[in-house]
């Protein structure tokens, strides 16, 4: 394979005038209990995609119980007053429906996709799981121990492990993003059934729910079914969002070295604080990130892969979450070229800051984002449901999509270069490396006055 598509965070625009895009028509209503219900009927393949978003997500996990929202989501399908976990799986699998329930930094998303004709059964399964889970003790224990094992096993894959370490190290223990949404083996051991049931009672309330359906359905019937099912949720209290805050103490560059003695490559992240989803700089940051590390011909991939053969891939991402996230680059290289690759990545960043981008690059990035956007976000019902869910979660309007191309077109070269200076490589850099420490320990000292080293076998992902 040529490119492993692992960092399709938000990146993905043209010389010819790209057609404008519009979100298809949809209806929006607020049920009596505060739940938002959006419906987007569209003809085509007879599939329906329904998402239930619960505001809060990992952000709402108590500091010492990281993974609580994620685990609560996992247990939804494992027992209701009318279905055991087995029965639920049996019914779901029998109609070939998909079901996933996971927490990210600001929401829990329960997603199901089913054939239009199976709507009755599929919606019954969905609402039963979301609203009436009984959290059987035995299932809670099983799920917890499975998650603990999964957390351990994540250390066996250096790429995801490096990503988790970087998150924890970057944001630090006092920041809500300084904990993994999945939790780790230490935090999961502190979670019990009572905490899970309490999290469900607190968060799965009408005022925190967003229900979105997109696909081939009759809108009146779908409205009736969903409104009836979800009107039964108690209104509850609206989740009080956490205030934005800076990442962990930044008094100079920091570096975390995770020792994996058997690794043949070093996996590394370098980043600084960036923007929020609602930041006015979001579009120019997206454009600049596309040029920096968001596509194959990006500056990073060009330098580290195409021109030097140091790696199979180098990329960057600009997070757009509810709270300020990271702008960070990621790559990997064989152990003995670690310093060469890090130096080169930093050189690319420095050149971007010094030289900025050209009008030709700006035009190319705009075309790329516009050209790839339809297939990335608007092609299927589940993508459209996702776009709609995001609009509701962040309190946006359909203009977020409908005006997107006009807003991309409006970004000037001055604006783009302003966000380069403001956000790319600005402030203290945070480094995280997973690799054979004995061979790279001395070399990496030059990047940061503070180097923290831990063996990968240390339980959990906490960094003291």
């Amino acid at each position, binding site marked *: *394979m040529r490119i492993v598509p692992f960092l399709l965070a938000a990146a993905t625009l043209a010389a010819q005038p790209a*057609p404008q895009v519009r979100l298809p028509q949809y209806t929006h209503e607020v049920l009596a209990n505060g739940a938002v219900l959006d419906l987007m009927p569209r003809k085509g393949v007879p599939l329906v995609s329904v998402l239930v978003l619960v505001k809060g997500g990992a952000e709402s996990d108590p500091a010492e119980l990281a993974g609580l929202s994620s685990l609560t989501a996992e247990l939804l399908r494992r027992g209701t007053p009318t279905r055991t976990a087995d029965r639920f799986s049996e019914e779901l*699998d*029998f109609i070939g429906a998909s079901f996933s329930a996971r927490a990210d930094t600001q929401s829990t998303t329960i997603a199901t996709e089913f054939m239009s004709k199976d709507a009755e059964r599929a919606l019954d399964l969905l609402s039963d799981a979301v609203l009436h889970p009984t959290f059987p003790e035995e299932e809670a224990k099983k799920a917890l121990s499975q998650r603990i094992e999964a957390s351990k096993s994540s250390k066996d894959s250096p790429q995801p492990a490096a990503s988790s370490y970087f998150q924890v190290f970057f944001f630090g223990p006092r920041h809500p993003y300084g904990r993994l949404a999945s939790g780790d083996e230490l935090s999961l051991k502190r979670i019990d059934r009572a905490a899970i049931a309490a999290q469900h009672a607190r968060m799965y309330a009408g005022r925190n729910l967003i229900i979105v359906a997109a696909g081939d359905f009759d809108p009146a019937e779908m409205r009736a079914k969903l409104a009836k099912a979800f009107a039964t949720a108690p209104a509850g209290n609206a989740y009080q969002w956490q205030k934005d805050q800076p990442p962990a103490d930044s008094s100079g560059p920091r570096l975390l070295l995770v020792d994996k*003695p058997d690794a043949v490559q070093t996996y590394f992240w370098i980043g600084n604080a960036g923007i929020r989803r609602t930041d006015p700089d979001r579009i120019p940051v997206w454009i600049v990130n596309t040029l920096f590390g968001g596509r194959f011909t990006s500056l990073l991939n060009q330098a580290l892969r*195409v021109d030097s053969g140091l*790696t199979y891939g180098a990329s960057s991402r600009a997070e757009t979450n509810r709270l300020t996230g990271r702008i960070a680059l990621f790559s990997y290289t064989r152990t003995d070229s670690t310093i060469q690759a890090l130096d080169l990545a930093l050189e690319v960043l420095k050149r971007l800051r010094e030289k900025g981008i050209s009008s030709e690059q700006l035009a190319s990035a705009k075309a*790329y984002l516009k050209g790839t956007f339809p297939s990335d976000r608007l*092609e299927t019902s589940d993508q459209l449901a996702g776009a709609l869910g995001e609009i509701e979660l962040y309190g946006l309007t359909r203009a977020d999509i409908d005006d997107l191309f006009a807003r991309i077109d409006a970004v000037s070269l001055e604006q783009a270069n302003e966000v380069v200076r403001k956000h790319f490589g600005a402030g203290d850099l945070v480094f995280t490396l997973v690799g054979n420490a004995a061979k790279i320990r001395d070399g990496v000292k030059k990047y940061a006055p503070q180097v923290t080293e831990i*063996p990968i076998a240390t339980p959990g992902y906490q960094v003291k």
Partner: protein
Amino acid sequence: MRIAGLILLLYAALVAGQQLDVKTHTLDNGMKLLIHEDHNIPNVALYFFFKIGSRNERPGATGLSHFFEHMMFNGAKKYGPKQFDIVMEKNGGRNNAYTTRDDTVYTDWFPSAMLEQMLDMEADRIRDLSFDPKMIKSEREVVYSERRNSEDSNFGALDELLNAAVFMAHPYHWPVIGWPSDIESWTMDDLQSHFRMGYAPNNCVMVAVGDVKAEEVIALAKKYLEPIPRHDPPPPVRTVEPEQKGERRVALNKASQLPLQMIGYHVPRTDSPEHYALEVLSNVLAQGRSSRLYRRLVDRDQLAISVGGGSDLSLDPGQFTFTIQPRSGVDPAKSEQAFLEEIERVRSAGISPEELQKAKNQWLADFYRELKRISGKANLLGDYEMFFGDYRKMFTVDKELEKVTAEDVQNVAKRYFGPNNKTVATLIPEKPEAAK
């Protein structure tokens, strides 16, 4: 209710199948074109399937097909080094490519206004690829990094070992990415002979799905692709894997948190009449949380945190692979034993009518999900043409599936999942300290 559910699924899939209006055309040089118009989004998925992969390689030059795939992006006559990607991306397009044991596939996604330029670029590299020694040197390192990536992952390392043990003689024995020694020693001459060996338009199927007019695609293909001369396709792969006559076991000691286990069985080639029975069996055993292996290993006995199974499309007899992720501290012999009991249970007692029905429903719903996107349609059309010999066979999958009986499923389990046809690969964790 259950039956009604099935009928509706079947009906839906059937409708989808028949609604896929595909225009075909064969260029004078033998390249076959499959075109389906879909105007949902203003984009096109243009795929080229070359019937050449690692099965066409030889010892000493393993991994060459995949390396060649990489080199296809490093410059031709009209569009020099880097230009393919630069031109695509500045026009709003994106590409990728992949190599399997059996084929090499180039995948382009782009706004429909770019169609003519895309065909010009593809024709340029298919006809006049250049091999710049500097690019060869640097791309070799890129591929090596890709390989190390898989060495550092438990799954990648164990999968390679399993394949090498399942196949002793047939070229499926070596990894698609190639052995390290071969990656280090590919030469310019190897690349050129790989091209001469079978990178021919008559050995390629082009699939275009999306916001296009079939007549326009055909006219542009005639203009740009038809002048590429035909030449001989790759010689047939002569080696037939001898029948396995006893269990094989291989082990990998690796610094690791958890063990890992993969179990492989020889199965027939994809276009065999038993294909759909094996697909149903695959779902019964390992698809969804109601599947037999999930229930037993993950849920009931709590020996593993995940279990999966399935087979890749293959032109020659291939393999069915199960992957079990035991928990830490679980002796892999125990998870293997539980796995084998479940396999024996299917072999001796068969499956229930409900399981049969469920597996078929799951299979069709998954097939249907593939049809949501222009990329998924292009992929299915190409795969059915390559591996089933005719893209139209994707329109009758519902009928093929309907024919499968519980008895068929038990029969394939008996025939292929027996102890003599089994290869077990186990990753045994070493403490990281020991690795120093």
